């Protein structure tokens, strides 16, 4: 063991200990007194304390053994659980068993190290990370290597290899083009964000039961979570649903502020709006029937239903798209057409 008690004189070249004069100088700083004197532990001086520490460490390891055994009890005696409370008990006992098994070992070893292993602080000197001699040697080697390749003298080789190496990885980037498994062209990728399943005459049905909704079912203050009829028969129902979900509400037609061109988009105050937040796409599903506010639970964008779902708070940048609806001959609610603008979050090509 190295004990470099002597190496603590970095304060200044001369340490006479006389009172320093004013002004900067080597005696402007205090002298390093060196490592404090070593204080002995109880176990270093008292054999009984040493013995006690030894027993404590052993007991900790025994606790660990008991912990491991209790893990097996939890695993095999409780066995395959048939109720939530049995599962909870098993999980708790597995946790306790593992915790005791691990903490017993860990605390035991550390206690051992702290009380019984030598606790002298030792000083070790640092070495230069790079010596000047090494640097010169390395610089020479690199210089020789470059010289031997002759790359500096042969610019033709240098330029062509740079070109080749720069080009070679580019195919690896283009390889990823088919990450889109649909085989869509660039134009189709953009276009499909613009359209949903809704179309003229598509029935509004309840989510998830798929039953159609009569206009008379929708009372003021109620809200229906709606999907287009036939959703489950599509090839990718979740993809379609992610764009087509709609929230259906009814409010007093007197409270509605309708902009020109949308006069016939509602039916007796029954309105349908896209449920997908125009911010980043969470379902805006929280409808407050007294204030007529729609709130997105993810980022708190708030839309005012009486103002055609205009943004009145939060991070969304434009109103929720409205789905024009009407009733069919049997009184069921149907769409007049698809949405007239893309639903969901904005994107570069949205315009």
């Amino acid at each position: 063991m190295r004990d470099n008690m002597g190496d603590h004189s970095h304060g200044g070249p001369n340490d006479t200990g006389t009172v320093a004069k004013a002004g900067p100088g080597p005696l402007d700083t205090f002298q390093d007194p060196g490592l404090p004197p070593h204080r002995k532990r109880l176990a270093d001086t008292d054999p009984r304390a040493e013995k006690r520490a030894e027993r404590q460490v052993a007991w900790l390891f025994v606790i660990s053994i008991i912990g491991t055994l209790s893990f097996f009890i939890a695993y095999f005696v409780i066995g395959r659980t048939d109720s939530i409370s049995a599962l909870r008990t098993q999980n708790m006992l597995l946790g306790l068993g593992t915790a005791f098994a691990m903490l017993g070992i860990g605390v035991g070893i550390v206690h051992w190290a702290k009380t019984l292993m030598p606790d002298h602080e030792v000083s070790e000197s640092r070495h230069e990370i790079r010596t000047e001699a090494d640097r010169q040697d390395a610089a020479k080697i690199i210089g020789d290597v470059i010289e031997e390749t002759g790359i500096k003298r042969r610019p033709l080789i240098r330029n062509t290899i740079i070109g080749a190496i720069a080009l070679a990885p580019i195919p690896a980037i283009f390889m990823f083009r088919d990450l889109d498994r649909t085989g869509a062209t660039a134009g189709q990728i953009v276009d499909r964000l613009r359209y949903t399943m809704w179309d003229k005459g598509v029935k509004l049905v309840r989510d998830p039961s798929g039953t159609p909704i009569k206009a008379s079912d929708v009372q003021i203050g109620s809200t229906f979570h709606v999907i287009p009829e036939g959703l489950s028969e599509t090839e990718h129902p979740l993809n379609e649903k992610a764009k087509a979900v709609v929230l259906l509400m009814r409010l007093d037609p007197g409270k509605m502020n309708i902009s020109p061109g949308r006069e016939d988009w509602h039916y007796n105050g029954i309105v349908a709006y896209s449920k997908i937040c125009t911010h980043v796409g969470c379902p805006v599903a929280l409808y407050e029937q007294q204030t007529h506010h729609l709130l997105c639970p993810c980022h708190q964008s708030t839309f005012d239903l009486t103002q055609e779902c205009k943004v009145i708070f939060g991070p969304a940048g434009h109103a929720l798209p409205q789905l024009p609806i009407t009733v069919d001959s049997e009184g069921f609610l149907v769409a007049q057409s698809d949405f007239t603008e893309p639903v969901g979050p904005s994107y570069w090509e949205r315009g």
Partner: protein
Amino acid sequence: MSTATEFQAKTRTGRIADFVDQRVGGSTMVKEFGRKIFPDHWSFMFGEVALYTFVILLISGTFLTFFFDPSMAETHYAGSYNPLRGVEMSVAYASSLDISFDVRGGLFMRQVHHWSALLFVASVSVHMLRVFFTGAFRKPRELNWVVGGVLLILSLAAGFTGYSLPDDLLSGNGLRIIDGVVKALPLVGTYISAFLFGGEFPGTAIIGRLYMLHIMLVPALILLMVAMHLFMVVVHKHTQYPGPGRTEDNVVGFPVGPVYAAKAGGFFFIVFGVVALISGFFTINPIWNYGPYDPSPVSAGTQPDWYIGWVDGALRLMPGMLGNFSFEWIIPFPWGANTLVLNVLLPALVPAIVLLGLMFAWPWIERWVTRDDREHHILDRPRNAPFRTAVGVAGVVFYSVMWAAASSDLVATHFLVSLNDVTYWLRALFFLGPVIGFIVTRRICLALQRKDRDIVLHGREAGIIEMSPEGGFSERHEPLDEYKRYRLVAFDSPDVVPAQPDAVGHISRAEKRRGALSRLFFEDRVAPVTPEELAEAHAHHGHAAVEGGEKAQIGH
């Protein structure tokens, strides 16, 4: 290589060790590491917590892969959790439920995995804060600081890719938010979204892709970075706090064998034990509550895991509209209009660029401003670097405001305040908080430094009140011993380095800027006590009080 005096091991262990040694040169390694010195301080342990939780993650994660199926094919749940029986869901979600309810100890392993993931990122973060506030990133450790920063980002990536795997409603909505943010990217967003999800959101590809990233690419990169990180720790040797006997040229601490190895090794079991205890008693990510992912439902309190919270919070804080002005800019081009979705791009990118950019650049910024090219192995106590500490706290406040914003709805319900008011306040704090944090922290640091000076010059308050014969009360002050005193006076206190002219006597604009920054950094400064000042203070208090214990009036 043959030698004249061939070594013959006596015991069986010795023979095995010798066999290995002759083939891989173990003796050199033992010589190098066997007695290597590591300084001991509790704040040095967070890196180990990070490493150990990562090991726990590898162990528990491997267990989980044996039972998890990353398929997004539709199935009907037939496992033993009654409230979901018969529900249509993806195979990934069903297999996560099976791990929880039908694999013995599976729920425990899931909870171990998730709790240690949270602890992993937390300990990486705290470790980086410790390194920052103590100045351990200075020369020669700048590159290791960068590796650490990369590790922080990788740990976020590991966390996020894992969070989404069970394909439950919570993580599915999280993925949808990611999709929304990706789509906001100008020019490429729509295509990146299509490539990521294999078509339209949610598609059937994303879970499998994230799974591959989560169990292979990201952990492999983390392992690589950890190896580089530890290699550099060995090259640099560990830093140490200032104190008697500790210099820039030595390391004071315990040798690896046996004390340090025992403590560090034992600590792995302790961390594992703590994670196991938490996992036994506290539910994490109850996927059975959330239900399978479906684009229509959403749960109140939809939040990411804590380490992504700050980005989510930034998204919440950004107003989308100011009156009738929308942050969605529609830019007319000859070929049609394009949309620049600033209400998503600004909060998603700017805070991250500012925070991570400053974090990576800070060692170079400080080196440039101080013109300090020396190696630093002695750490700064945070109070002794007031500007840096204040910048760090400003960053922490900035982060925490966004972090708090991610739970604005829960703050509202639990403190019975309005959700909107919480957002307004946090919007103000987003700008004011870092400034206030900076000013207050710098003042506190300077005040603590003055207190240190006071203690060195006048001694420590002993807590003993004495009455003088005249009836006055005073508190006894005890002088410090030289070791304690050294701890308070031995620190570097950089001074302002004004702009310096170059060789031809010209002061460049960059140099002027540096000079101004240097003034900003170090103008307010409390210098360490010099021996002369101490002698003067003792003389001032008169005669033998130097050794005997000083008296100072209360309120002095």
